[in-house]
């Protein structure tokens, strides 16, 4: 069967957490259905001082894909309604955990970035969403551009989380259709230190390179390569955890 989508991702612990013995708080999730008509990538960055934020990140990344896929048409049709719907669903999953473990909701604080694609009658539709910092990068016509910018409040160490009081105001959601071999990269703010130039809001050439890897290598190989680069290169440019996820629609070979 022609590979329609490739998905890959990796996360590595940053020097701040490593020195303090705190677990990796970035989580990455990826899924591709057996018939390859659906694919999901999701990434979340747990809040620094929240004891269970790595759990919160795990919950939101693992649940967001099914929330979207099970309600894809409704969400695609009405993004305003969709924000509240998705938010409430995520909160419900987080609250289930708080009740079972007797922890406060804000201890599960994390950002969230996701892209979900669905093929319908040879067309591919996508829904993407973003709460907090980090960046959603879109690949189209052989070029990369930013679909969703970081939302950092004013300060470098402040952002918005899924559990924040004003999350809905800061929840950004996007929809569209792939025209050709398009794709997404999700990056956490730690990774963004190496891939995003704040002064002119531009992206590093490495972003294009990462998409090209998907053309040449199996997705498992791409995941390993991403991890190696995060570990040996990206994490030297920041004290934060680093994570990345990629989804690319593949051109059909004739």
């Amino acid at each position, binding site marked *: 069967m022609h590979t329609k989508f490739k998905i890959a991702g990796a996360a590595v612990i940053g020097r701040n957490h490593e020195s303090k013995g705190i677990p990796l708080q970035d989580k990455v999730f990826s899924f591709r259905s057996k018939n390859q008509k659906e694919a999901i990538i999701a990434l979340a960055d*747990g809040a620094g001082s929240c004891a269970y934020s790595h759990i919160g990140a795990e919950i939101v990344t693992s649940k967001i894909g099914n929330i979207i896929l099970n309600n894809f048409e409704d969400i695609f049709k009405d993004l305003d309604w969709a924000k509240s719907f998705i938010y409430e669903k995520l909160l419900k999953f987080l609250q289930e955990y708080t009740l079972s473990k007797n922890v406060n909701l804000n201890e599960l604080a994390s*950002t969230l970035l996701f892209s979900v694609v669905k093929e319908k009658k040879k067309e591919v539709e996508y829904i993407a969403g973003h709460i907090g910092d980090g960046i959603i990068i879109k690949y189209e016509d052989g070029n990369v551009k930013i679909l969703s910018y970081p939302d950092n409040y*004013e300060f*470098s160490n402040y952002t918005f989380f899924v559990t924040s009081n004003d999350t809905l105001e800061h929840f950004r959601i996007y929809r569209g259709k792939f025209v050709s071999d398009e794709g997404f990269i999700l990056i956490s703010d730690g990774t963004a230190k190496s891939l995003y130039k704040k002064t002119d809001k531009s992206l590093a050439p490495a972003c294009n*390179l990462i998409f090209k890897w998907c053309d040449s290598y199996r997705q498992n190989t791409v995941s390993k390569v991403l991890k190696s*680069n995060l570990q*040996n*290169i990206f994490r030297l*440019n920041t004290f934060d955890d680093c994570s990345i996820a990629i989804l690319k629609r593949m051109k059909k070979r004739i």
Partner: protein
Amino acid sequence: MNDNLIIKQKDLIENPTPRVAVCLVLDCSPSMSGEVNYGSIIQQTNPRPINALNEGVRCFFAAVKEDEIAKYSVEIAVVSFSGKAKIVLDFQSIENVDIPTLELDMEHGGTSIGTAVKLTLELLNKRKNEYKEAGVDYYQPWLVLMTDGQPTDDTHKDVSKTVRELINTEKLTIFPIAIGDGADMEVLSMFSPKRTPLKLKGLKFNDFFEWLSQSISPIPQSIPGEVIPLNKDGIKGWTEL
């Protein structure tokens, strides 16, 4: 690993280091001379408060310069005040800074805390705008206010409301410190809705500024959602509780 699979530095971005702006707002009114006039007798404390303050400020700059990470991130400005306020040192990289020596302002008597804080807020806003224009990330700025006296005008009444709002909306952190028994703790409290003003133990400026440098050190390494607790045990070393 295949060389094509290793990302080169040239294909990455190098972003400027995020900055944390710290402004020291320091009382240099005549009472900081340590002279007490008993009519025909003038008693002089030893050391003079202004000298101990200068020593503390030098320690602070030296500690930040020695910190491998903080020295690229922390920017310090100094505002002195008595009846008037002036910028002794504007924000700049600490690497080549000439550490300022504070002098008593014998010309303008009085203690206009409000004027000093207003000037400081203007300085901080100007620096933040410069960061924004240059695309430099920054952390919440710090304001350290030290005084040994009571305000001699009402300028603190309006500006303290502005400061309280900034603190309540988490746009500023303040450390209000009283020097000696003459400082007005109530006025200092007006600037600090979340943190009780503390009184310096004697002239332990060195101990305070050492604690301050240790407190600021983790900030450049902090990440979103991280709360950096202050060293409360360390506070006991320089304050009268």
